[in-house]
């Protein structure tokens, strides 16, 4: 084109290069998205179809204060989160999360209107290709969530609860939801696999269920007198026969006094909680995967010349902030940054595949030198945070992060350093870090132990202590909520590993609020 080509000059401009400007337009977003999609497909990312939605800052706050769903039922606690988010945002103390992505099919990703073109491209690569492919591929999401049905289900939940409010009053619905929310983390099946249901079946079965469940409960709580000899003959059968880990499920099925509509609402909270369960277990992986891919995709676009230097500078600034891990003695330290750890591990796996060192060959003989795309894809599909770290955290990263283990035993006067980043410590640190992401250890293990079916109908929960850790202050409050749902006395026994009951807590249900 000109006669200066023999001189060192900037790369020839790509024919589809994005203009160097910070304002976005619909055409530019479309164009950026085409390029990102092309690159993502070349890398073999398998995603749901994408739906990108431009929203305002207010709508963004709204979305992430109501459990990050496009529709949700109304509850005061969402109002509370909105108020505190709004406050932080208006004072400028806090930027808004720049992406929210919904595990649905099509996958909905929000783009905030005040972001620059660079940020929009970053969000598209991160959310619409990173998270999206994770939702579609990871085994937990495949097992537990039904991307096709969730938006419909939320609409159903919203309408159903609004209908209940009209019929039974806002207060009755609100107190019930308060109680359900208090134990929503215990509304999850950890081991059982669910059967997938479509929206239509769900609705059709709901009516049926109301009638059936009510009859079951009546039978369980039969008040007809039994003959005495029969009574004496056998000891009361244990109920439930096995301890039940899903408190909300147990309440939905067996709480004696709940009305059918109340059971349905318990079910709604339980379903939503179950839907978010995989997200709670894959924070490091999910964010790491998405961050890895936005980094990889945008760098590829830069290498091709589709995006320019200005774009890259802005992107890298934002990316660097996201993956920063403050050290433990920094005033900004608030635990391990899942973006930092996840991104470092994903990048490290690629490194091990492409440029393995002798150490890597010893630690990761299976993957050292393998095809990094296949290896990463396998890791994304088949692990959760706990197992992912146990499997893939390399000594190199432990050194880079300067990880060390601190043992805090309240029997000892001082804290002890139990391992650091040295040969003796690598495996120990890795194991401990994996444990730290085990939800089963992070949350107290509380299950339904028994119900006194013959006498006062009291419900006994059992907290199996982990590492002698006590329950928090709020436990008493939560127990009151459980008692409200159950309708009768509730006991909570804390049990040491040797089976000895360490302490017990109880809430008396003196008077039932509802005349029945």
């Amino acid at each position: 084109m000109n006669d200066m080509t023999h001189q060192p000059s900037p790369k020839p401009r790509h024919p589809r290069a994005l203009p160097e400007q910070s304002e976005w337009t619909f055409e530019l977003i479309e164009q950026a998205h085409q390029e990102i999609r092309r690159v993502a497909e070349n890398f073999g990312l398998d995603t749901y179809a994408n739906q990108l939605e431009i929203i305002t800052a207010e709508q963004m706050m709204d979305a992430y204060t109501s459990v990050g769903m496009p529709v949700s039922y109304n509850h005061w606690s969402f109002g509370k989160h909105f108020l505190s988010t709004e406050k932080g945002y208006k004072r400028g103390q806090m930027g808004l999360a720049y992406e929210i992505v919904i595990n649905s099919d099509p996958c909905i990703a929000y783009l905030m209107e005040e972001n620059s073109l660079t940020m929009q491209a970053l969000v598209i690569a991160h959310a619409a290709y990173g998270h999206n492919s994770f939702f579609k591929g990871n085994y937990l999401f495949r097992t537990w969530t039904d991307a096709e049905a969730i938006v419909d289900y939320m609409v159903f939940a919203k309408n159903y609860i609004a209908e209940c409010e009209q019929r039974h009053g806002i207060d009755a619905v609100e107190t019930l939801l308060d109680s359900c929310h208090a134990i929503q983390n215990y509304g999850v099946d950890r081991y059982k696999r669910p059967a997938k249901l479509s929206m239509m079946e769900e609705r059709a079965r709901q009516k049926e269920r109301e009638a059936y469940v009510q009859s079951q409960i009546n039978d369980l709580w039969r008040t007809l007198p039994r003959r005495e000899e029969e009574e004496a003959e056998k000891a009361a059968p244990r109920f439930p026969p096995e301890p039940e880990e899903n408190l909300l499920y147990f309440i939905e099925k067996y709480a004696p006094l709940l009305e059918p509509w109340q059971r349905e609402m318990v079910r709604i909270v339980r379903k939503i909680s179950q839907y978010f369960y995989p997200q709670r277990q894959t924070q490091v992986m999910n964010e790491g995967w998405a961050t890895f891919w936005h980094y990889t995709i945008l760098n590829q676009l830069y290498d091709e010349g589709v995006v320019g230097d200005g774009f890259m500078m802005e992107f890298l600034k934002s990316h660097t902030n996201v993956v920063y891990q403050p050290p433990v003695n920094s005033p900004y330290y608030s635990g391990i940054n899942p973006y930092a750890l996840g991104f470092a591990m994903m990048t490290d796996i690629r490194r091990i595949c492409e440029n393995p060192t002798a150490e890597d060959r010893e630690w990761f003989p299976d993957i050292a030198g393998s095809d990094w795309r296949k290896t990463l894809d396998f890791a994304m599909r088949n692990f959760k945070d706990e197992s992912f770290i146990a499997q893939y955290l390399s000594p190199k990263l432990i050194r880079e992060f300067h990880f060390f283990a601190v043992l805090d035993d309240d029997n000892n006067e001082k804290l002890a350093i139990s391992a650091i980043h040295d040969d003796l410590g690598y495996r120990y640190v890795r194991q401990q870090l994996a444990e730290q992401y085990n939800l089963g250890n992070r949350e107290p293990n509380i299950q339904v132990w028994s119900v006194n079916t013959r006498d006062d109908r009291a419900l006994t929960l059992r907290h199996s202590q982990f590492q002698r850790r006590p329950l928090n202050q709020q436990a008493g409050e939560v127990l009151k909520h459980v008692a409200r749902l159950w309708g009768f006395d509730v006991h909570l026994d804390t049990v040491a590993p040797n089976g000895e009951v360490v302490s017990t807590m109880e809430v008396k249900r003196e008077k039932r609020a509802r005349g029945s």
Partner: protein
Amino acid sequence: MTYLIDRRLQGKNKSAVNRERFLRRYKSQIKDAVGRAIKGRSITDIENGEKVSIPVKDVGEPSFGHAHGGVWETINPGNQEYQKGDLINRPKGGGGAGRGKAGNSDQMTEDDFIFELSREEFMNYFFEDLELPHMVKTQLTATTEFKNQRAGYNMSGTPSNIHVLRSLRGALGRRIAVGGNSRKRLEEAEAELEQLLLDGEALDAPHVVELKKLIHHLHTRLLAIPFIDPFDLRYSNRIKVPKPMTQAVMFCIMDVSGSMDETRKDTAKRFFILLYLFLKRAYDKIDVVFIRHHTAAAEVDEEEFFHSRESGGTVVSSALHLLDKIIEERYGAGAWNSYVAQASDGDNWDNDSVLCRQMLINTIMPKVQYYTYVEITDGPPQNLWEQYSQIPDHHANFAMQKIVTPADIYPVFRELFKKQPK
């Protein structure tokens, strides 16, 4: 298939319901906060939102979690000095390295949950106690009326607002400015040509032809300057300004003798606020004058008015004398609408009450738009009340009420609110 959807225009204020639910749930706390705010604020500053704080434990959403205790083994990044086996002291306050991350992640470290009430919400809570009729509430919360007013000229606007004179004046100026150089050269050329022709130069002499060419060229250039350009257009500019209304002065008179305690003062304050709010709707400019009295009266600022406390007897007429004096000196000659709000617990020296009645009927009432009196007491009426009760017979613009709670205040203003503000 990809969709790019613009959702910005949809679903505005989707959280309004949740916000309203939250306010509904914490109504009593919020009302307390509003009550405190009314006490703490200046009367003239009543119409703003308010920051409300609620103890975190009240808004908490409890959930099961681990407390600190037992055995915690945590992995932390950023080791600088430690070796395996080192023993370190526990960090103070339970935070820092040894602290597990488990537990309720929603736990806030602040003691209070703080949020802002909007102006409307704040006013609603304020009105709630006063039991105002609905119409009055809307009257008070309604935003001011605006009227359109000319405000010079603008470069943009609708064609119907084109200001012809200004636009043409601008065009003329531009034509003169742009054409100045050519016109000057044209004049010179024409003068030169005339001179040459006068000197007897032949019409087809090369010099003359050259000049003619130049003159033609300059003519064309001048003609090419557009008569009017979009750049010249001026539009009449109109802005909205609040409807100007006449000015008012509001007098707050309060008995500050020993018997007026804090609660009574608080009730009195609400009474003054309500009058102020009403006046604010009706008038653009309001002066507020505070007169407090025991045996002698003094004009004070708001701070002193509500917060200082005197003891001793009560002579109401001293305040009325001062009121009259201030009206005469500063707010006389009919330029001001005067409103008076008086609050007292009813105590007065016996023979003074008669004097007060006479003063009001003869001197003060003709000068004021409206006079309101509240007696904040639950005891039997005292002599001042009896004397004042005769005033409505002479003047209709007088209202009085005995009040115990803020809900009793409104009847005092009934007459006032009945009339539409002009």
